[in-house]
């Protein structure tokens, strides 16, 4: 769990060395330069002028056994962070954008209930990217699937292609209610961005996962799936996890335990 490994464990391979350097930087960054002021930029190794790297693959582990009935803190946190109106408050709930939704499932035979959040699964082979006629739907180098709103024409092919119903179209003008960090607007498709603004800032966590931890459920874990030392990789190694619609062979960035 600890990021710093003993030196004796250090193999000569370069990824190991990179991880050690990364851990050292993270430790240095943890030092406060003034009370309440942290060196955020170096906290996760990528400075703001560096492009997202394919050495990283951001992903999320959802532990459905810990996801609580009736709790939708992750949904609320997402709407607060990204500035979309919660469905309950929307004038048109049927067409309101949903970046993440809470599902409560019941097995009809055994009556067993399962809770889980469903959102963009950040596929390695995303069908939404395949079908987009303008190239607006794209996968960033670090595995985050996004919509470039500058080229999105709102045709909604991606919404039809997505097996997870993860995408929404913004039907109404937003009238300057957007967050400065999260531009979004009428006529464009949108979905979970794995809080890309937070990732680029170096927060290393998403709003939903933060809220889940704050609520004490710890059902959501965000991290780098390419880094064998990361908490998410460790848990993925230990826990039996599933990909939703694994038959589609999309290699998802969001994995579920306990479904």
């Amino acid at each position, binding site marked *: 769990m600890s990021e710093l490994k003993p030196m004796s464990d250090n193999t000569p391979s370069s990824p190991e060395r990179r991880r050690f350097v990364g851990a050292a930087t993270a430790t240095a960054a943890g030092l406060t330069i003034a009370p309440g002021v942290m060196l955020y930029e170096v906290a996760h190794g990528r400075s703001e002028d560096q492009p997202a790297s394919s050495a990283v693959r951001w992903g999320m582990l959802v532990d459905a056994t810990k996801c609580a009935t009736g709790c939708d803190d992750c949904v609320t946190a997402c709407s607060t962070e990204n500035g979309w109106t919660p469905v309950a408050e929307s004038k048109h709930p049927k067409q309101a954008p949903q970046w993440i939704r809470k599902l409560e499932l019941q097995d009809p035979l055994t009556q067993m209930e399962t809770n889980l959040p469903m959102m963009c699964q950040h596929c390695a082979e995303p069908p939404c990217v395949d079908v987009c006629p303008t190239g607006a739907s794209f996968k960033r*180098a670090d595995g985050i699937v996004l919509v470039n*709103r500058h080229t999105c024409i709102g045709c909604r092919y991606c919404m039809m292609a997505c097996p997870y119903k993860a995408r929404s179209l913004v039907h109404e003008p937003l009238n*300057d209610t957007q967050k400065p*960090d999260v531009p979004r607007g009428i006529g464009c498709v949108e979905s979970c961005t794995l809080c890309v603004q937070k990732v680029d800032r170096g927060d290393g966590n998403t709003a939903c996962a933060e809220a889940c931890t704050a609520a004490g459920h710890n059902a959501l874990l965000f991290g780098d799936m390419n880094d064998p030392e990361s908490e998410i990789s460790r848990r993925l190694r230990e826990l039996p996890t599933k990909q939703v619609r694994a038959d589609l062979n999309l290699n998802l960035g969001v994995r579920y335990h306990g479904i």
Partner: protein
Amino acid sequence: MKRLLALGAVVLTTAALAWAGSDAQPKSSGAPKPAITKAVKGERCVEDNDYMRRNHMKVLDHHRDETVLEGIRTKKYSLKECINCHASEKTGSVAAAKEDFCVSCHSYAAVKIDCFDCHSTKPQGSIAMHPLNAENTHYKHKLAAQANSKVSAEEMAGVAQ
């Protein structure tokens, strides 16, 4: 007769035109010039004013592609930083009112901006973080409440004595 009628018509039209001309506003030199207010924050722009007036859209376009596609979020040429500096003191926005920085020029040049269909026109962060606001803006009401309570406490003491 026909000639007379035609002449009359011509005379009437000329008179009408002349009347309309005299009634119109005195002609100024072109359309009203845009009101370009100095940025509230910062001493100078990331490039010279002349360069920015002609090329701001090019640098913004380039930067937006780098940011969206690659995740490069440098501050120079970032629209967010433009807004942070140029938001007006009155509205706290670059495009809410006619005199606001982006709108005043763009309405003069008759070029529609659709940046703000998606982008917020207001500076980032809480209002307290914006230089427009004094450092204690976000808890001014608390200070005021404290001040009030102090006065009332003294008054109360006076009443008690």
